[in-house]
């Protein structure tokens, strides 16, 4: 069965999720990987339908837009305090999509260039510093692996990778554990906890991934080929995201926004039907 790179990535990301932890859905790839994991090997996951709330949505939503729309979804309402408590207690997982990630797993979503006079001011560090000081699994993904995204050194550390400060102040708490890109799957078991190739996606060569990376990569002793999605994986992903929101993460910003606006209205219609029966307790 044919699959696309988004589906391959989602499948690889799903494999990293397990245990009775909250999983936040900030992005469509993150949300879909959580849904897929829950429906296959990890039914105990507590998947949120927004990044902050909507635990245990039953049945699973068929829509994958994250929090930023804050549509009402059924499920158990949580508070921001609940979310951060789960982070501090290491009962939380999130797939983070940084603008830059470096050799030692520092990540940047804040600024390109110096923070005080940035070439590009991005969005701020959001809750990444909390994650990277507390969680035992820190999960990153990048949809456009290139020397501009997988860099020698991030311009700003929004999230703490490995290094002397970590050694001194944090130890393993919140250390980066996984990176999934459009080219392969990585961990931080290279020299001095540097980025190392675990598996390459089908058709991707060592040279290709090295060329797309701004620093010399390590490779695990046995680099395997990333397992492709099964038919049932693909069926779950496609049923969960019939409007293909997941494709937007591979488009340029403005193009993605335009496509989203179109999908948004179709999604509203679907949601209207799905939620209608449960609207009683509101208005």
């Amino acid at each position, binding site marked *: 069965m044919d699959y696309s790179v988004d589906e391959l990535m989602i499948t690889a990301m799903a494999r990293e999720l397990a245990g009775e932890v909250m999983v936040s859905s900030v992005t469509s790839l993150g949300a879909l990987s959580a849904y897929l994991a829950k429906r296959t090997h990890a039914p105990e996951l507590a998947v949120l339908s927004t990044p902050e709330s909507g635990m245990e949505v039953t049945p699973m939503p068929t829509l994958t837009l*994250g929090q930023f*729309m804050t549509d009402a979804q059924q499920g158990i*309402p949580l508070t921001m*305090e609940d979310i951060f408590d789960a982070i501090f207690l290491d009962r939380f997982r999130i797939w983070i999509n940084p603008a830059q990630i470096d050799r030692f797993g520092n990540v940047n979503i804040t600024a390109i260039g110096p923070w005080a006079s940035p070439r590009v001011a991005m969005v701020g560090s959001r*809750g990444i510093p909390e994650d990277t000081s507390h969680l035992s699994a820190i999960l990153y993904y990048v949809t456009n692996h290139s020397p501009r995204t997988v860099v020698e050194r991030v311009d700003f550390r929004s999230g703490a990778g490995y290094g002397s400060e970590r050694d001194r102040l944090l130890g393993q708490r919140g250390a980066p554990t996984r990176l999934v890109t459009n080219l392969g799957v990585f961990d931080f078991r290279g020299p001095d906890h540097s980025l190392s190739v675990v598996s390459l996606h089908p058709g991707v060569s060592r040279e290709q991934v090295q060329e797309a990376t701004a620093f010399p990569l390590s490779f695990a002793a046995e680099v395997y080929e990333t397992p492709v999605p099964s038919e049932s994986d693909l069926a779950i992903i496609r049923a969960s995201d019939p409007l293909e929101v997941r494709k937007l993460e591979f488009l340029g910003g403005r193009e993605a926004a335009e496509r*989203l606006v179109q999908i948004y209205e179709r999604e509203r219609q679907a949601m209207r039907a799905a939620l209608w029966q449960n609207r009683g307790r509101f208005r």
Partner: protein
Amino acid sequence: MNKLMRHTEVVDAIPAGSTIAIGGSSLSRKPMSLVRALAARGAGDFRLIVDVGGPEVDLLLGTHKVSRVVYAFVGFEIMGLAPNFRRAREQQTAEFEEWTEFTVMAGLDATVKSVPFLPTHAGLGTDVLTVNPSFRLFEDPIGGETLVAVPALKPDFALVHVNLADPFGNGVILGDGHVDVLCAKAARHTILSAERIVSPEELQRYGRDVQIHRIHVDGVVEAAWGAHFTGCAPYYRADLAHVQEYLAAARTPATWEAYCSRYVTDVPADYILAVGGPEELVGKLEV
């Protein structure tokens, strides 16, 4: 007891130079009608505190009402970066303090708990500590561990948009609460805008969805569609078509000025008409 106010009265009550905490989260339940009213007036020089900010910060920056922003995030999510925020950061036309989601919460909570700081490990190993000298490293007095001291954030005002409020200032939030309760508790004065004002008796039926309590509230403004063009779950969604219009307008000074005169300097009632009127909004934004 009756705290009902109009938008103009709220604007008059907030002096230039005030520190203002704003509830909501990126494109969700931002008190946009109050923000537009502030953006439309002369004086500003506000110091904003937001956890996850979006159009409210961007609009106030774009109308030159802001001298400083405390933030963990300012953006339009998948729709793009916040254009005026980006410009102000890059051209350094305002001051910015880089915080994080939990530390903004902890800073507000420190004020609520009447302590000068709260401790955390969050931020260790990141450049947030490098660029924000408000945070101090210290040794915990029990075991000597190195921790971050998050200083108390002390807003003069909080602006929070809720689904329902009674005239006394109790407020119902039906969707995600974001950090709005903390904003309301921490601020010296809290102003609610509400989709609808209901009687105290009706409001009480909402049980634990009554998240804002009147002892923390000083004013209540009725504002149907008051969060537009952000969303107000479960009533209506963010208006992404308007987000596109906003982002396009922000590209040049001329188009931005046109946007502001069309949508911002008008009084709130006209805004709803300007964006299409209630019926069109229901048709396109209700789930």
